[in-house]
């Protein structure tokens, strides 16, 4: 087991593209960290640098107490699960799982024992003699997991391992992967662009955007106190409502004119962004903000109302038992649920 430390790690591709701006963070021993962000933000690049598949341009990467910048991937004692599983098509399931051990000089009997144990854990015992082409997508995914487990690595690296599975299987595997990681207690870095995976699996989430880390925090912190408008709108479905406003005299007014209650102004003044999550408002005739509902979306358990507040787009989610129609209504905002962001940079105030 080991912790992972990145110290000012930077990545510039040979074509001059800066994929990762210098970044530092630490993953403590046994933690499950999820890297999340939009496509092309550099998640895979970061993970591949940790794996040793991509050279580090600048900075230090350590796994355990050892700086591993120049250590061969095979010597980092890591295991990686790829999006397309990357199984060896010409080897049986058992050979696929045992290949890494074989190259480390583990004895045949020992390999066999470990492969069987991993197969048992993953319900693959009946498939050990099959080739990957004779397995379903979910089974291949398990084999890829098994290949990672048998090596008893210090660190698991996952690059969107579930994104080739259908929605139902993905939910099931999500739980299994997490349970397995808890049981084995192996430090893990998991890349995804699915925010549900990020929220449900992570001990801590690292939100990335365009080669930079936007925020690091527990799922609760990321959702409850987003560090920027980017995080606020990336995490959460539907995303947080962001409205242009103006602070002054200890109060915040929306550009439409109305005053926002419960805004933590703290002496800020000037233009800013007001963030309110769709579920943090209540429909009430006595509310503080006028809300003009254009569309009602039925989601079963929830109902989404899309419309505008002070001329700016706004969405509200209400429980299914609450009455809602198109037209004018008013909203009251729950206390301490108003987020303020810097208008220019989008940083949290």
């Amino acid at each position, binding site marked *: 087991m080991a912790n992972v430390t990145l110290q000012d790690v930077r990545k510039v591709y040979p074509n001059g593209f800066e994929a990762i701006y210098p970044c530092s963070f630490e993953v403590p021993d046994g933690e499950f960290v999820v890297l999340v962000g939009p496509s092309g933000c550099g998640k895979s690049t970061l993970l591949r640098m940790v794996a040793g598949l991509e050279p580090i341009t600048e900075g230090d990467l350590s796994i355990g107490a050892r700086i591993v910048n120049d250590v061969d991937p095979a010597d980092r004692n890591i295991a990686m699960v790829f999006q397309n599983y990357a199984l*060896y098509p010409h080897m049986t399931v058992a050979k696929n799982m045992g290949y890494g051990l074989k190259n480390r000089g583990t004895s045949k009997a020992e390999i066999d024992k470990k492969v069987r144990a991993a197969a048992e854990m993953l319900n693959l015992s009946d498939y050990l003699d099959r080739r990957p082409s004779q397995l379903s997508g979910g089974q291949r995914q398990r084999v890829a997991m098994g290949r990672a487990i048998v090596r008893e690595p210090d660190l698991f690296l996952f690059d969107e391992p579930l994104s080739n599975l259908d929605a139902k299987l993905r939910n099931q595997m999500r739980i299994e992967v997490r349970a397995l990681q808890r049981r084995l207690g192996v430090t893990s870095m998991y890349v995804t662009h699915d925010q549900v995976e990020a929220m449900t699996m992570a001990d801590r989430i690292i939100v990335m955007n365009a080669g930079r880390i936007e925020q690091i925090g527990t799922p609760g912190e990321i959702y409850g106190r987003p560090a920027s408008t980017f995080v606020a709108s990336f995490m959460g479905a539907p995303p947080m409502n962001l409205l242009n406003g103006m602070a002054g005299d200890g109060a915040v007014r929306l550009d439409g004119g109305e005053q926002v209650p419960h805004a933590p102004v703290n002496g800020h003044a000037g233009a800013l962004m007001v963030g309110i999550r769709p579920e943090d408002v209540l429909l009430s005739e006595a509310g503080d903000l006028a809300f003009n509902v254009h569309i009602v979306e039925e989601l079963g358990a929830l109902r989404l109302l899309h419309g505008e507040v002070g001329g700016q787009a706004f969405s509200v989610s209400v429980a299914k038992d609450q009455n809602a129609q198109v037209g004018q209504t008013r909203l009251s905002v729950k206390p301490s649920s108003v987020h303020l962001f810097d208008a220019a940079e989008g940083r949290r105030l």
Partner: protein
Amino acid sequence: MKRTTFRNPWLPILLLSPQLAIIAVFFYWPAGYALQTSFYLQDPFGFGSTFVGAENYTRLTSSANYQDALTFTIVFTLLVTFFSLAIALLLAVKADKVLRGARTYRTLLMWVYAIAPPVAGLMGVMLFDQSRGNLTQLFQALGWDYTLGVNYWDTAVAMIVVSVWKQIPVNFIFFLSGLQAIPRSVHEAAMIDNRSGMSRFWDVTFPLLAPTGFFLLIINITYALFDTFGIIDTLVKGEPGNNPMTLVYRVFVDGFRGGDLGGSSAQSVVLMVLVLILTIVQFRFLERRIHYT
């Protein structure tokens, strides 16, 4: 695949007929004729022929010249196939390292495929040219009295080198595309599983190239057996003399230089059977056995 149905039953036959005509005129008719001729002894002056049964065939088994050509053909085929595959694979592996992702280079290399074989063949002949060839001069500078077309072994070396040379680009392109079809992540998974690049190659890359390799094996054997005719003819210039010869070239020499049409037909029938066997091997065993997905 979508099945097309024709209303008029003659239309498909009409559409196929040019192809069928070509096959009939250039393959079945000569093949049938050769089969027939192989049972006759031709008068050397073309005044008719006598039916001799299987004598042309039995004559082959006892002919020392034919045995020599057979031995040489086997050695020649093995060497040409082995070296053209091995060198092409080596080059393809090196190129693949550089080319991953770089499409422009790959397109450039495709041009080599289009241009190289005839040019390479001609250049090879020029390099081995008796009076001006660079290789000949090099050999002579090294103290090897190299005499193409006179010394059996010297001619054999030239045949093998030029044949290998001419075939490398074709093999190279097939190997390269085979290598590029292996997903990058499979290589990467292997890098995490195995430190040694050499052993990764034999454990992962090579087996995944096997379908390409077996296909090329058949292609190369066929090439060495039959398509090297032009190279050999250029080097030997129709003068059998003391020079080594492949079976195909012997068919030509015996038939058209020696006037023994019956014997040469028997030889070509033997070769046809060989091609048939190779084709069956390819379809029956290799094509079926070596696909993983």
